[in-house]
C-alpha cells in the first residue's frame, strides 16, 4: 500500500534518512522502532509532505507522492497523528474534529461522522464545546486520533501515541489502534515503547541512523537478542 524506496530526506542541509526502504502492506500494523535520531519521525513527516524528499521515492496505492502537496496527500487517504498530540488548544473539541475533516466537503456526512466519533469517545462527548486545551493528556491523545480519523484515512500514521501517558491510558490507546486497524485502516506506527508496539504490530522495521537495518515479523524482533538488549531493555 505504501512503498518507500531508497529515501533520502531531512531538515534543510541535514540529511536524516539515508536510503530508507520500507513497505507497508494493506490491512497491517507496521511499526518503526529505533533510538532517538534514527529517523522514525522524519519518515512520517516526509510521507506527509512536510519535509522535502532529497532522493528516492514514496508511492501510495500506486500514486507517486514525491511532488504532491500535503493537502492532496490527505485527500488521497493518509492521516497523521503528530508526536506530542498537537491538538488545537484554543478551539473547541468539536472544531478540532471539524478541522480533521477539512479535506471533505460534504457537510452532512461530516456532521454525522462527528456524532459517530463522539459516540465512540464518550469522554470527548462530555466536553464537546470546551476548549481542547483544557482536556487531560489522555483525552487530548484521543482527540488527536479522532481528529485524524475524521478524514477517513486508509493509512494512519501514528507518531509516539503513548508519549507522556500513564500505563493504563497507554493500554487504552494501543487497544484503540488495534480496533482502528480491525475496522480496515492500515497503520504505520512509530513508538519509543517498542515492546507494546511490537505486540500489536504484525511486523516491524528497526531503524538505525536513517536506514532500515532489520525487517522481520514482530515475534522475530521481540525475540532477537540484540533488539532485546538495546530496545526492549532486557
Amino acid at each position, binding site marked *: 500500500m505504501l512503498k518507500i524506496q531508497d529515501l533520502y530526506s531531512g531538515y534543510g542541509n541535514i540529511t536524516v534518512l539515508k536510503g530508507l526502504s520500507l513497505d507497508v502492506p494493506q490491512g497491517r500494523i507496521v511499526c518503526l522502532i529505533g533510538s532517538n535520531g534514527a529517523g522514525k519521525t522524519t519518515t512520517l513527516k516526509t510521507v506527509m509532505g512536510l519535509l522535502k524528499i532529497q532522493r528516492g521515492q514514496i508511492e501510495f496505492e500506486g500514486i507517486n507522492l514525491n511532488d504532491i502537496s500535503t493537502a492532496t496527500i*490527505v485527500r488521497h487517504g493518509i492521516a497523521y497523528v503528530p508526536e506530542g498530540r498537537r*491538538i*488545537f488548544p484554543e478551539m473547541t473539541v468539536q472544531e478540532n474534529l471539524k478541522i480533521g475533516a477539512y479535506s471533505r466537503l460534504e457537510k452532512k456526512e461530516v456532521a454525522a461522522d462527528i456524532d459517530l466519533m463522539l459516540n465512540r469517545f464518550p469522554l470527548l462527548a462530555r466536553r464537546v464545546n470546551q476548549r481542547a486545551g483544557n482536556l487531560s493528556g489522555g483525552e487530548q491523545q484521543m482527540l488527536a486520533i479522532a481528529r485524524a480519523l475524521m*478524514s477517513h484515512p486508509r493509512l494512519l500514521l501514528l507518531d509516539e501515541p503513548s508519549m507522556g501517558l500513564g500505563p493504563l491510558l497507554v493500554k487504552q490507546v494501543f487497544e484503540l489502534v488495534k480496533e482502528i486497524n480491525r475496522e480496515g485502516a492500515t497503520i504505520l506506527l512509530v513508538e519509543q515503547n517498542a515492546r507494546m508496539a511490537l505486540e500489536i504490530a504484525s511486523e516491524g522495521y528497526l531503524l538505525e541512523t536513517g536506514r532500515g537495518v532489520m525487517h522481520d515479523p514482530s515475534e522475530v524482533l521481540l525475540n532477537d537478542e540484540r533488539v532485546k538488549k538495546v530496545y526492549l531493555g532486557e
Partner: protein
Amino acid sequence: MNLGDVMPNHQINGDKKAIRPLTEDWWRRLSTPQCMLFGAFGLVLLLIPFLVQDIYFIHLINLSGIGTLLALGLNLVLGFTGQISIGQAAYYAVGAYLSALLATRLGFPFWVNLPVAGLIAALCAIIFGPVLRLRGHFLAIATIAFGEIVRIILLSWDPVTNGPRGIIGIPHPKIMGFTFGSDARYYYIILFTVAISFLIVYLIIHSRTGRALRAIRDDQDAAWTSGIAIHYYKTLAFALGGFFSGLGGSLYAHLTGYISPEIASFSQSVQVLMMVVVGGMGSITGSALGALAIVIVPEYLRVFEHLRLIVYSIVLLLMIIYAPKGLAGLFGSISKKILSEDQKKEE
C-alpha cells in the same frame, strides 16, 4: 418497545425541530436579555450624535471607528491567524491615498472610492504574499519593511503623491445630494461601514475558512497535516486585513480632507498593534474596545501634561500584565463572575 414504535416518534421530533425555528424559537431567541441588551446598545449607537453635544468628542469617536477597522483587520491577521504584522499602516495609507487621488484627480465619488480603496489595499497584501512563508520575528521585520517601503514611496513619488506636502482638498462624501460634511453626519457612514465589517468578520470567523485560520494560529504544523493549505490562508488573512485597513484609510481621507505620508508611519502601525493587544487578540468586539481606548484615553490624560506619555505607557503595561486577553477578556471574566453570583443567589 419494538422498532415500529421508535421510528415514527423519531420522525415527529425531527419535523418539529424543522418548523420551530421559524416561529416561536426566533421570538424566544430575540427576547433573551442578551438580545435586548444588544438592541438597546445598537439604539444608543444610532443616537450618539444627538446624545453627545461635544463636537470634538464625536470627532474622536469617528477616529476610533476608523481605528476599529484597522484593529479588525490586524485582528484577522494576528488574533485569528496568529501572524504578526507591524505594517498595517501601509494598507491604511494605500487606502487613504488611493481614495484621495481618485477623488481629487479623477473626481470619483466617495461610494466608489471606499470599496476600491479596500480592494487595492487587499491586492497589495496579496503581492506581499510570498513573504508570508517567513515565521515569527522574521515576518515581523518583513512587515515593518513593507510599511517603510510604502511610506518612502508616498514621500518621494512627488508627481503623484505630492510628497511630504500631502494631498489637500479631499471632498466630503456626497450621497444622492446629501453631503456628509460634519463629524456628526460622517459618524453614520463610519458606523455603517464598521457594522458591515463586523458582520463580515463574524461570518468569516465562524465559517470553514475561519476554522482554518484559527487552526493555523493554534498549531501551524498540525493544521498543515490536516490538509489545510497554510500559505493560501495566510495570504487570505493578510488580504482581508489589508481590505479593512484600506476601508479605514479611505474613510479617514474623506473625513479630514487632508492626508500626508505621516499616516504610513511606523508609530501608526504600532498604534494599531496596541489597539488589538489592549482590546483583546482574537476578539471582534475587542477591536472596537481597543480602538476606543487607544484613541480616547490619551485625550483624558492631558491633565497629567508632560507626564502624559509616561502615565499612558504605565496603563498599557498594567493592561498587558493583568489583562493579557485585553479589555474584551476583562469584560468577559467580569460578566461571568456576575452571572455565576446570580446563579448562586437563585440557588
